[in-house]
């Protein structure tokens, strides 16, 4: 069977905005999502480990990281909806079949996420109120949540790699269907890109966590002590080094071990080579900045680390988008769909988006201007 025969027709409604705008919004939303996502994916288990450290300052870092999780998860979930929204507009022809083939796994994310999120709250309440009951249960809840978030990361990578692995659809469909209707039990584990892609995500998540620790120590930890700054620098450096190594290894495996000849020539030749090279090398920049702070956090460098990590995430998101389009190109061209621009709703959205950011900025400013709560111990 030709896998191209399984691609749905274009929507008769056409794109509601030019493709370029939608893909910019999709990538922008994905970058926003990757920040908190990295922090719960890698940051939560790290926080749990740090809270077991002998050094009190290191324990404090873990406590602060774990305490931030409820807010980070709430923001991450909502930021994640934006890219999924535009993904469904522009990539529905591949997205729906892939997720339906593995429907129970995809659906299961909702259940797993609910349990994981409450696990995080259970753990965080134990930190806020050490006198609260069942400390062992609260500790276990944190670990269970960390494992479940890892499982969610795996399922997401599985679904989104299956979306572009169209050639695998016929076989998965044949093996997991009844009367041509998928049972929703397929999994994309045989896809060679799955594991290195997951590795890249883990590497990026570790780097994001390291950058977060430095920024938190430099700007938000009260009282900011020299010992705390040294602990943050040391801890962030260890995490970033592991993250950088994982990113480099998985990225190399991904590019040279799994890309087809056509994708390699697409990404390693012509105008896209600088993008690919920048994506690969960029992770060295935050690592270098963290290396310079291994003996102690410096606010200016901490801010630069955050900016550098944002650049790394941005380059990875853009490159991933270019690869995704190239992988789907043999089946359909996402850029060639008809467009029926919805002018006034689009303008209203952009206005409200800017206004919304202003409201959020005002609210955050009020919090920053308010007296700080007591520093929480580990």
């Amino acid at each position: 069977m030709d896998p191209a025969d399984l691609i749905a027709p274009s929507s008769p409604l056409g794109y509601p905005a030019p493709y370029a705008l939608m893909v910019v919004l999709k990538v922008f939303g994905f970058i926003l999502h990757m920040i908190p996502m990295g922090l719960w994916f890698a940051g939560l288990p790290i926080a749990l480990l740090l809270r077991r450290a002998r050094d009190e300052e290191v324990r404090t870092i873990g406590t602060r990281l774990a305490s931030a999780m409820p807010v980070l998860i709430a923001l991450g979930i909502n930021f994640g909806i934006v890219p999924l929204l535009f993904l469904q507009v522009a990539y529905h022809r591949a997205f729906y079949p892939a997720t339906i083939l593995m429907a129970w796994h995809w659906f299961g994310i909702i259940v797993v996420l609910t349990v994981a999120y409450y696990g995080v709250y259970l753990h965080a309440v134990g930190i806020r109120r050490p006198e609260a009951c069942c400390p062992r249960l609260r500790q276990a809840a944190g670990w269970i949540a960390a494992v479940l978030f890892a499982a969610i990361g795996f399922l997401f990578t599985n679904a989104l790699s299956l979306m572009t692995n169209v050639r695998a659809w016929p076989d998965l469909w044949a093996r997991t269907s009844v009367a041509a209707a998928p049972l929703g039990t397929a999994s994309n584990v045989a896809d060679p890109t799955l594991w290195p892609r997951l590795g890249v995500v883990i590497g990026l998540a570790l780097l994001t966590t390291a950058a977060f620790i430095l920024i938190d120590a430099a700007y938000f930890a009260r009282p900011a002590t020299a010992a705390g700054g040294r602990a943050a620098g040391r801890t962030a450096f260890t995490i970033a080094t592991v993250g950088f190594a994982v990113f480099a290894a998985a990225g190399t495996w991904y590019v040279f071990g799994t890309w087809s000849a056509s994708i390699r020539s697409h990404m390693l030749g012509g105008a896209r080579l600088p993008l690919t090279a920048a994506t690969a090398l960029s992770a060295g920049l935050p690592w270098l900045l963290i290396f310079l702070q291994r003996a102690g956090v410096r606010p200016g460098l901490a801010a630069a680390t955050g900016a550098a990590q944002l650049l790394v995430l941005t380059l990875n998101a853009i490159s991933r988008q270019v690869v995704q389009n190239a992988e789907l190109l043999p089946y359909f061209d996402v850029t060639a769909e008809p467009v029926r621009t919805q002018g006034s709703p689009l303008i209203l959205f952009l206005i409200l988006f800017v206004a919304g950011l202003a409201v959020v900025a005002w609210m955050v400013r009020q919090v920053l201007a308010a007296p700080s709560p007591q520093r929480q111990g580990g």
Partner: protein
Amino acid sequence: MHYPWWNVPFLTSPMLIAIIAVLHVVVSHYAVGGGLFLAVETRHAYRTGNDAYLGYLRKHAWFFILITVVYGAITGVGIWWTIGLASPLATETLIHAFVFGWAIEYVFFIIEIVSAFIFFYGWGRLPARTHQAMAWIYAGAAWISLVLITGITAFMLHPGKWPETRSFWDGFLNPQFIPQVLSRTGGSFLLASLYVYLHAAFRADPGLRDLIAARSARPALLGAILIVAGGAGWYAFLPESAKAALAAASALNVLMVLIFAITLAVFVMLYLGPYRHPGWLSPGFAILLFVCGFAAMATGEFIREAVRKPFVVYNVVLANQVLPEEVPRLRERGFLEGGVWTRAYVATHHPEAMAGDTIDVAKLLALPEEERIALGRVLFQHHCNDCHAEEKGYSAAAELVRGWGREPIRSTIERLHEAQFFMPPWCGTREEAELLTDYLASIAPPLPGGMDLGAGR
């Protein structure tokens, strides 16, 4: 048809949407009404200098965050997740039509989340005025989210002029928009009070309970009135087919009576209880009120879903994931040929039935009986499984044709929408109707034994 069909045994995959939707709405309405409750009551507590009440409100805000920001947010995403799996063509259509409506809604979600967290975590740190402002920002953003999503869900029941104009605003400002905004706003007021009673009955000091009971009774009663007013508008602006479905389906008759009876019962209990006798608010009374409110909301959502049949989106997408404009072509060339995945299935499993690139449906009838039944089952999955389980389960087809012979099955298939106007028309050829008949006849159980109908005397 454009997409693979997810087989969920016994339940059918669209029922997962209904389950998640009901689980979500009972919290999402609280997320709106509860926000207003916190804004109004925090203001009252600050103004009157009632520190004990402020203390209670802080506890309630934590409960509110745990319920709405976690469970409410995830089940909200869950609905979206599930509709993409169980109703992909309708989801594709809605997202293409309203992507910027959803995008605007998520701007307000972000404002909600940030303001909710700052309201709670800023308690005691923020100046009173700023603290109250956070609550009001949350309440406003949450209500606007309700308005935005209601425009889209109301569109599914009555798209107004959208099928002709394809204009975002014609679709969004549809005839059902205002009635549903009214009833959902009312539902938010009512449900929020019921959550407050439930929480206060267990967590508030006895002295405060009377104050909470009395102050939350008015918005609850107002909510009940808005529900009735919105419900009347909802009925007035229903498409003719939906009104007919309400009149024809006995299950919906019962549910309609049930929803009015429960709403009335809640109204009376609220009036006699928290409004006139605040001291009555005990844990048992609060649980009873909450269960009744939950039942009314769940019933309302079920009716809202059911009356749309035979459409998922009225006049835009049929319940079996077919666009109405595709029906004539499917009846001429075949359902199997018209479906992306069904066509690929036939080409792979029955290459002998292919004439070049297209399916020769006449050749399918020449297949051995076992293979005809198997193909009939493929047709069933993609044409009927949206609303009917196979042999057992939700509205199981086998039970519906119990004791039928081939002829009544075949003629019913060919005249589906005439036999039952809330079913989609048959979207295949006569030959494909034969295949589906083969399958249904193979699973139809005999008439129940032991019945004396007098026919044999």
